């Protein structure tokens, strides 16, 4: 208890932002409770109504309650971006550690592939991949993952290289520790803090990229409640029904801000040297 209080005192920012992030996650989890309507219930005759007591954010062109859809959109966006960050973090770190520890051909192959991805504007390939594989949210996540894992691989590799030649690793090797043990016991913990910080700061960016693909029509498909898609649907009604554009946009913005702040403060906690 004492420790927790000290931690809070030392890292007030982190605590506040964690709470905010938890609140966003709570909105996603408890969307069914919080929502005033079924997000997919369409009353065609009630299309494009302005915000009112009945529909707090108004209704969309299919007569669905926008407030409820924005809440449910948190589920879609968070699930997609968290799983995306999870995938690239795990895959990237694994490949990076393997490349760094074993070196040789394995290293060369992994790093050349990573060069290929990095020497290339990610969004281009992501659009191409998502478009070619067919437009849906899962493919959009895969597409972005394909072009984004390299950052983690490079990071993990450089961290591994830094300590590979240290004495205690050599000692572990001499005493006959299994390779998997060394990787798990020494390499991973060493790389983890940096990787976690990068991952946390990446959540916001990834959310924007997923929303961007959905906006272009290469991500989530109707009738999914997804913010990027909702913005695209609302775009045609910009002059007559600006609320269709304002609320989903605000939702993305707020969520991204919260996760960006969280990422930044996590860096301060784990790596105080960095300003």
């Amino acid at each position, binding site marked *: 208890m004492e420790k927790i209080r000290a931690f809070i005192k030392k890292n007030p920012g982190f605590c506040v932002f964690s709470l905010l992030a938890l609140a966003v996650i709570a909105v996603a989890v408890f969307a069914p409770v919080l929502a005033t309507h079924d997000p*997919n219930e*369409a009353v*065609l005759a009630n299309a494009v109504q302005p915000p009112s007591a009945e529909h707090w954010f108004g209704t969309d062109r*299919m007569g669905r309650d926008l407030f409820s859809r924005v809440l449910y959109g948190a589920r879609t966006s968070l699930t997609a971006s968290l799983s995306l960050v999870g995938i690239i973090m795990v895959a990237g770190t694994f490949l990076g550690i393997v490349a760094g520890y074993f070196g040789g051909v394995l290293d060369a192959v992994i790093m050349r592939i990573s060069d290929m991805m990095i020497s290339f504007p990610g969004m281009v390939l992501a659009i191409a991949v998502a478009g070619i594989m067919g437009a849906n949210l899962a493919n959009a996540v895969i597409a972005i993952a394909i072009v984004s894992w390299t950052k983690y691989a490079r990071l993990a590799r450089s961290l591994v290289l830094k300590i590979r030649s240290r004495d205690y690793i050599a000692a572990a090797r001499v005493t006959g520790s299994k390779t998997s043990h060394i990787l798990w016991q020494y390499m991973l913990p060493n790389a983890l803090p940096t990787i976690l910080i990068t991952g946390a700061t990446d959540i916001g960016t990834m959310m924007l990229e997923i929303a961007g693909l959905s906006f272009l029509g290469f991500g989530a498909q*109707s009738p999914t409640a997804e913010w990027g898609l909702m913005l695209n649907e609302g775009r*045609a009604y*910009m002059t007559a*029904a600006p609320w269709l554009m304002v609320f989903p946009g605000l939702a993305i913005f707020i969520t991204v801000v919260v996760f960006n702040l969280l990422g930044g403060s996590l860096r301060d906690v784990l790596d105080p040297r960095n300003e």
Partner: protein
Amino acid sequence: MRTKWIKKAAAAVLAAVMTVSLAACGSGNGNTSQGGGTSAADGTHLNFSCYNYSNSMDPITNVNSSWCFLRYGVGECLFRFDENVEVEYALCDAYETEDYTTWVLHIRDGVQFSNGNAVTASVVKASLERLYDAEANKTGNSTPSQYVTFSSIEADDEAGTVTLVCDSRTVNLPGILAYPWYGIVDTSVIDTEVIGTGPYYVTALEENSTIDLARNEYYWDGEVPYDTIRIFLTEDSSTKAMALKSGDVDLVENITTASDLMELEADDAYYVSTTAGVRLGNSYFNFNGVLGNDALRQAILYAIDDATMCDITVGGMYTAGCSVLPSSLSYGYDQLTDPFSYDLDKAVETLDAAGIVDTDGDGCRELDGQPINLNYIAYTSRNLDEFAQAVAITLESIGIGCTVTVQDYDTALANQSAGSFDLITSNATTVPTGDPTGFLGNFYSGNSGTYGYYANDQYDALYERLLAATDADEQLELIIQLQQILIDDAATLVHGYYNSTFASRASVVSGADIAPIDYYWITTKIRPAA
């Protein structure tokens, strides 16, 4: 020392970046002088915004390019349709035929192309031959033989006549020749530019951006009101509406966003011309899939609230109806009865009665033990995707699974021809040549392979009689019967009839009325407001 050097270098680079950027903007700046509003103090100018259907205006390229040829007021056909979709003379001013196979068309005297070349019988012959040659050797994608094929085309420049010998009896040849494919081009210069006889000609073209037109000084049919016209090719409907409101353009075609259209209609500063169009918006059922089940199709027709979808979902862009032929045309719409008009309870009853129920409690009904999940393909043109989504949402609400995939037109058409769909949206002109026979053929079992495999022997027999009929009353009677069969069979999901619109700034433009058959946009009737 070092820092100074670096500073210079850095400054130089920054300066370079800015200069290049500013130069870049500068070079573009010149083009924009005519950007918005009615420019050019001297002379009359019109700014028109429309969707870009094709970057080509050559009738042989494809359907859309031929339409652009006519729509931009650049080209004309031998015949044209008036506002009642009746054929009238255009470049041809008289014809004779005895047996509806050999036609002698007289070419209007004194007509010139916009480059001053005379429109002679032999040029007309060359233009038509070029069209068929392009189809034969695949240099073009237009398929004129779809409507008529000729065993010979002869020109007599002395008499000013072209003699067309059709391969079969073709009663409606003038209507067919009014279709944009058969637009007449100056074949002597076609390798370098597309020249027609329309009131305007192209002076400059920037792909996907703008087309500049100028008055055709040689125009044959009355005065041409504008010195110059600039066409802004605009992808989405909202942008068109905004451009009209901001004054960037004076006239726009087909605003398909309901909210924008309502706003414009409510404002006296704008003149909105709407016409009950000749286009049918519908979704074809695939009879080779689960939708071969009669009860399921009937339930779908019961479940769909066409009136609300037409009035609210697409904001009045369509007029609701039950038949494949628009109610505005004189094909006996009043005599038809619709047994499946909107009734959600009946839809559920029908499904339950047919044993299409949810047995495993997942909220989705099953047919023959398989959960129903309809593959609904839509494309974004003319609100079709909105219909599809509204339909899907409605069907989901009564336990019929339905997934909408929005594709571009070409991909959707490819899927349609491959038969890989359960439902697919469509928006087509029902009387492309002034006659619905061709369109009704979509449901003839000999042709219906690409429209969902509908088949009904009685329909086929009546349709064959229609093809042979020459008497107008008999034709009408058959057409009415055919329509009723389609309704009774729940052959297709009719959404409604597309209303074409023109919206213009009332203070600047007059006479901007849209023609029911949408081959014509820019005409000499559109003129500066007095």
